[in-house]
């Protein structure tokens, strides 16, 4: 049963790895990659904890829904990146002024 905990720890690791990359990199494509990896991390925790002797199908359905939502969000984000680059000439977020 310890592979449940192994994969959920890997999931937690992916979540925080993605969070770190999302915040620290300015290129928009990297941010989209980071978000996808964070999503995979959360889904991994969700299914890993449910994979005991009686595999629970509800988390599987939730993850499939999550994957489709993630791909639609990524598609919208990528189209936006192209538009931002067309308008502002660079595919990076301007330096956020925190006021």
């Amino acid at each position, binding site marked *: 049963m310890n592979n449940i905990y192994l994969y959920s720890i890997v999931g937690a690791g992916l979540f925080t790895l993605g969070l770190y990359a*999302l915040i620290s990199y300015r290129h928009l494509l990297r941010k989209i990659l980071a*978000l996808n990896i*964070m999503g995979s991390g959360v889904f991994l925790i969700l299914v890993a904890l449910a994979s005991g002797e009686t595999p629970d199908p509800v988390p599987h359905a939730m993850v499939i829904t999550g994957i489709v939502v993630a791909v639609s969000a990524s598609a919208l984000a990528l189209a936006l990146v192209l538009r931002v680059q067309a308008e502002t000439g660079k595919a990076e*977020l301007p330096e956020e002024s925190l006021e």
Partner: protein
Amino acid sequence: MLITMQEYPWIVIIILLPLSAAILSFLFPRRVKLLGLLLALSVIAAVAGLAWQVIEHGAQRYAIGGWAAPLGIELYADGLSLLMLMVTALVCLGVSIYSTGYFNRAYFRRSRAIYFWPLWMFLWTALNALFLSSDIFNLYVTLELLGLSAVALVALAGGADALTSAIRYLFVNLLGSLFYLAGVVLLYHRFGSLDIAILSQHIMSQQMAPSPAVWAAAGLISAGLLLKTALFPMHFWLPPAHASAPGPVSALLSALVVKASFYILLRLWLEIFPVESPVPGQLLGVLGSIAIFWGGIQALRQMRLKMLIAYSTVAQIGYLFLAFPLASYIAWKGMFFLLISHALAKTAMFMAAGNILHFGGHDRIKDFDHVVQYQPLTSAAFALAGISIMGLPPSGGFIGKWLLLEAAVNSGQWWLVIIIILGSLLAAAYIFKVIGFAFTQSEMSHQTRKVPVQMQWTALALALAAVLLGLIAPWPLALMDIGLPFGEGGSG
């Protein structure tokens, strides 16, 4: 065998109406404006039907697919969700009339304008589904639907700053949803169910210290939702997004979209999170008060009217969080009433700003040119909405702030009293600044454009509604008592 009038499943009809209208307006782009008006009227009728059912028989629970709670998804309509549905219906009626004037050929490129209607109706579907759902994973899906349609609507304006603020808004939305989902995962594996009612029974029943999973879930969900509600440290994305969006879209964002994630936080906070220690409440109260000051001061400094109104939203959201340290029965009701009146007032304000932008071609406050003379209705709308934001009697804002003051005095937290009053003074300052400039004329004259009449009247009507809300206050306040959080389980 057609089911009789009372048993009409209004709760489902309210979600299906905007969904089918969105699909129809996607299929037949030429008849979008008619569809928008028809949708607004039919949803108001459906909300009235649901209101009648809820008042007669109390909170409504509807198991979708015929499967009861732990297995299936349940919809739940009580006083809180009913009020939110009513405000959404009112605001969206105003937006549908306003948009027939705003998105005409002269002002907005036709190829872009036809996408406003289906996206807006999907946003309305997401709002209705969110206010009625009692399943936390379903709330995640509605939050995503809400976020994606809001981002697409912001990007509709098409300028460089609109697009950069749209993509920043998208990343903030996705990050918030992922944090929320992480919290849902922990709750599901701890209690084996996704339904709010069942979860609250589990958590309330085990009186011993809640396990770390519940605390972590509460923290993650709150962090995600606070990011989406733009509370003080995480508000950086709101002003550019709300200011650079098209007129009716910024009204929708400030009035409803930001409140939707707050609504979920409120419902989960009252029913699921076992908050014994006052520390989280105090923390939210402190962040709220900093938001009031920060938003107010930044609003005073702004050159552009729409940025000023966006920062006023940041400040008013701070007010909503003042109820958490009080956590008394009056405080929750006062805060919720403030939420409703702010929705109406802020929609009227952004519509007025849209009119001025449409009239003069710019919204630089310094260069307002005879706005009062040429745009009497719009200036009146802005002034009336300002009364409700400032909290002057008899407006709804006044009643909300008064109840909060009362709760603060009863619980003896005087620092809150001071903050509420100072916040109102700050609000008065930046609103009078705008009204002052409305009377002046600027040196350089620029050619003005005629503002369609329906845009002016809707702004005025919603501003009037925000003010008159204070007069009919007892009815909505009584309505809040139906259902869970305030009714039986009301804390305090």
